[in-house]
Structures are given as C-alpha cells and as structure tokens.
C-alpha cells in the first residue's frame, strides 16, 4: 500500500464526528505567536525600538560634559548621566508619543487585514477556525508583540544604563532616595504601565484591521487615532472629555517616580484603557464575525 492509499484510506467521513483535540487553542496561539515573532519586519521593529535607549545612552555619554547636558526630556536626561536606572523611564517617555503607537499600529493593523490581503484569511476560516477564536488568537499575539516592544526598550535601557552610567540608589522626584533594587522595581512598574496603556490602542487597531483589506490603511489609522487623541488632550476647551481620551493617562507612569505612588490615578488610567478595549474589542468582534470574506 503506497502512502497515497494511506491518505485516502483513513476515511471516517462526516458520519463520524470531528473531535477537537485537547490543547487545540494553545496550539493555534503558539502558531500565531511563532508567525508574528518569526516575521522579519516585526523583529526589525523590536530591534529598532531597542536601539532607542542605546542611542540615548551614547549621546548622553558623549555630551555629558557639554553645557547642554542638563537640558531635555523634562530634566530626565540630566538624571540619566547620574544614574543609569533613569534611562529606562527616559527611553519609554521618548518612545511613547510616536514610536510605540507606530509599533502598536503595525502589529494590530496587520493582524486581520494582512491575512485578508494575502488571501490566507479564507483558508484559515475554511480549515475551519471559529472566527471568534481566530480574533482572540490574533489579539493575544498582537498584545504579546506590543509587550515585547516595551520589554525590548526597557531591557536594553537597563543594560545600556548600567554599562554607561552605572545603577545607583534612586533619587525620586520628591527628593527622597530609595535603594537601587527598589528603583529597578519602579522602572519595571513604569514598563508594565506603559504596556497596559497601549491595550486600548491595540483594540482600536484590531477593529480597523477588520474593516479594511489594506493593512497599511489600518496601521496608519491606528497611529492617527493615537496622535489625534494626543492633540485633543492639549486643547483646554475639551477638558470635559479629556479624562476619557485614549492617551490622557499615558504619562501617569511618572507616579512610579514619586515616593507615594497614587494607585488610584494609575487605576483610572487602566480603567480608561479597559473601556476602550471593551468598546473596540466588541466592535472588532461584531464586524469580524459577520463580515463577508471576499478577499
């Protein structure tokens, strides 16, 4: 019996049920994560973001004796030369307005629209993968890539900060000094808060990705949403709606640099993100589970 007959021989047919294997969801998720992190563009994205703290460290190291040393980034830059720990928060602060939304846009905008444009979506759905499960796997893999982007910035910042300037006990904004170990924990807190602050934007990007078959459109749209939100946040006349804006609480990570961290304020920021995730997650789901796949 040839291998051909083996393929054709084992025929249960639709008369016999197609039984799902255990761990099928985990297998799908692993496959998605491998796809996202195996893609060269995404690896380049992570490398590019990781290069930001390195670049900042090199510039500060070279220029630390110049008259401009104390200027820039709200005084953060001046602190970095004194204590490498501050490099993490500085790099995240610099990436937050544009680079991180860009990375988030690329990751989330490509999720569904990329498959639609490549035509692979129709084959995934006829495998079949339940649309809700596919969307969930895409969302999880996207969140993981965004988290990895924040993680890459933070990790490189720790290493570069330690190498160029050393990690010392940390003087907080209030002037109090805490041990270096606590400083590290506080920096990790900043990174965690920044990553969670991007979840709302991921949901927006996923929704836009279900609306179009052109991934670049969804990517650009996501970035535009973040930028417009940032602009609206600066207009005093809009004070009434500003607390609900996607980006309003983004810079609240500075709480981790105060002696008494206001968990209430951070909680508000996360609640706003949760609301955006709920609304745009629901929109993405309702759109994706009902849309005709004609690509």
């Amino acid at each position, binding site marked *: 019996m040839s291998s051909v007959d083996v393929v054709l021989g084992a*025929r249960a047919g*639709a008369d016999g049920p197609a039984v799902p294997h255990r761990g099928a969801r985990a297998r799908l998720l692993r496959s998605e994560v491998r796809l996202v992190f195996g893609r060269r563009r995404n690896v380049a994205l992570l490398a590019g973001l990781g290069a930001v703290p390195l670049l900042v460290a090199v510039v500060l190291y070279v220029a630390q004796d110049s008259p401009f040393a104390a200027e820039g980034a709200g005084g953060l830059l001046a602190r970095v030369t004194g204590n490498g720990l501050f490099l993490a928060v500085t790099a995240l602060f610099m990436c937050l307005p544009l680079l991180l939304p860009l990375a988030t846009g690329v990751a989330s905008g490509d999720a569904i629209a990329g498959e639609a444009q490549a035509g692979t979506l129709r084959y995934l759905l006829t495998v079949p993968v*339940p649309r809700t499960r596919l969307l969930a796997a895409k969302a999880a893999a996207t969140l993981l890539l965004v988290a990895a982007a924040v993680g890459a910035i933070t990790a490189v910042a720790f290493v570069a900060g330690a190498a160029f300037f050393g990690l010392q006990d940390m003087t907080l904004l209030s002037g109090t000094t805490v041990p270096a170990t606590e400083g590290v924990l506080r920096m990790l807190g900043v990174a965690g808060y920044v990553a969670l602050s991007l979840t709302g934007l991921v949901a927006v990007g996923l929704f836009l990705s279900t609306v179009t078959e052109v991934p670049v459109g969804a990517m650009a749209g996501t970035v535009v949403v973040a930028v417009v939100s940032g602009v609206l946040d600066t207009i005093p006349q809009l004070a009434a709606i500003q607390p609900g804006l996607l980006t309003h609480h983004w810079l609240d990570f500075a709480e981790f640099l105060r002696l008494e961290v206001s968990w209430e304020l951070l909680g508000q920021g996360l609640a706003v993100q949760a609301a955006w995730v709920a609304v745009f997650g629901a929109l993405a789901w309702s759109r994706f589970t009902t849309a005709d796949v004609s690509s």
Partner: protein
Amino acid sequence: MTSADLADRTVTAGPVATLAAGPAAVAAVTAGTAAPTVSERAVPLVIRTQGLTKRFGSGQVAVDGVDLEVSRGSVYGFIGPNGSGKTTTIRMLLGLVRPSSGRVWLLGRPMPEAALQVLPWVGALVEGPAFQPYLSGPANLARLDACDATADPRTARHRIGEVLERVGLTGVGRKPYRQYSLGMKQRLGLAAALLRPRDLLVLDEPTNGLDPQGTREVRNLIRQLAAAGTTVLVSSHLLTEIEQVCTHVGVMSRGRLVLQGERAALTAGAHVRLAVTTSVHHVAAAASVLRAEGLRSITTDGVHLTGVLGEAAPEQVTAALVAAGVDVVGLAVERPSLEQLFVTLTGEGFDVVR
C-alpha cells in the same frame, strides 16, 4: 430490497439521513443508468442549495436563485465564464460569504451554522492558492494544521510529508512560498486541501497557472480521489480542461445555473443531431423523410441537412431515407460538446467576460 430502494427511502428523511445511507447509497448512484437530472432521482446530496442568491451592496446580483445538487461520489464540473458567479457561489458554500437569500446544505448539514462540524471534511481551493509569503511550503501547511482543532498534532509532520509527495512538491526544502512558481503555488494549494481525509473537495480553478503536464496531473488526481469515494466539485472557465473527468455538470451564466445534470445525459438525448448529406435533387425529399421520422428543428444548408434526433433511432432514419429513394451521400450523428451546449443555452461565447 435493492440498494436503489434504500436510497429512495432515505432521501425522504432529509439530507442528514441520506448521508447515513453510506456505501449502499453510493452503490445506488453508480448502479443507476439513464437518469435525466439529479433531482428526479433519489440520491444523497453532498452539496445542496436552494434559491441561493447573493446581492452585493452595489446592487449587482452575483448569484441568482441557484439550486445546486451535487450527489455523493460524483465529480461535478462547475463551469461558466469568468464573472458568472461560480466563485461567489463557492464562497457561500463554504460559509465565507453570507447569502442574501436561499439556503446551503453541505454534507447534509446547514451552512454556515454547521461549519465547524462540516468543514473538517471539506478540502477547498478557492480563487487560487494563498499562503504566508515568508514561510516555506511545509511551514505554511503546518500553520494550517495548527489552526485545525480536530487535527492530531502528533501526525502533522507525517501527513504534511505525505501530502507534499502526493502533489509532487517534494524537495522544496525551506524555500519561502513567495519564491514558488505559479505551478508550485497551485500544488501547495492542492496539498492544503488534501491535508487530511476529505469527503468533499471544492476546487475552484485548480488548473490555473499549470502547464499542460500539470493540468494532466490535476485531472489524474481528481480521478484518483473520485475513485476513492471523495466527491469533487471542480470549477473552471476552461471547459476542455475538466470536461473529461466530470460525471456531472452545472453551467453558470450571468449568476444563474442554466443547466445541471449528468454529463453523458446532457450531451446525449435531446441535443444529439443527425447530419445528412444528400444530392442536389433530393434535398426536399430528404427533409420530408426526416420530418416524418420525427426529427425536429431541421435546417438545410445546400445539400447538408441536420435535425435534432430526439427519440428517433439513426439506423431507422437511414433505412427510411434509402426506402424513399433519397441519395445518402453522408450521414453522421453529432453529439454536442459541452461548449456547443453552452453556446446553445446562453447564446454567448464561452470566454465572455462580463
């Protein structure tokens, strides 16, 4: 009770019950001889649609009241020019596009409601192959397999190796999909459709981009699969490429299913013409004999006469002509090709792009 009786009985219980008839029902299909159309006989249907219609937002009606009937074990040639609604119909069969109205049953279960139960048994190639460009062929198949909750991960490697061999894609190694030739892409698409045992294969233009050798291989593959009991729906805008392998044919034109049935029956019976060549002085006499013998739509072109044979037997007509003293210079029975049939039915050439 014969197997045909069994099939007769089961079909009344609805499509789900007909599936359970299994081998007996298949035997009934193959044992059956002259059957004008599928609908007039009791056979289990693997694909059935009822008034299937798709109206797009632009107001264009892509598919208009299509009643497909594909019986188990058949190779159903789904033909029509580009833009006649074949692919939209196939997308609705597979639950990718929601019908504006009408219903679909696949393997006896309603679609798209039963998609998760039915689609594991359906292999599909829709509007050309599509894969992740940066992954290799095997990696792409592994990805599709990982998405299939009912596929056994332990046998994935083995099955992928086998199916690549089956479509003639061994030794592609780690070359990314985007570097594949069109023919290799098409083969990988077929491999994905065959990644696990299927009851039904839906192959939309499977020979697109293949050279004559590749086209032959696909035809042989379809024959093998059909011989093993898989029902195949194969669409094409190139009649000659699939005409030879089909047991049944459905013809689409401008969104409508204008004809469907067994291929042999369609190209026989009502459409067979008798062509008679006589001498100059016997044309009128020949025409009256043909008319008397029951031939219809008799046309005369010089000394050549043709008429639709209908119930008349060619040998009797010949005898009658000779008995009437008509010179019979030539006589031929002309069975229409599917293409001629299509032109007759729709009044348009086959390669018309709407």
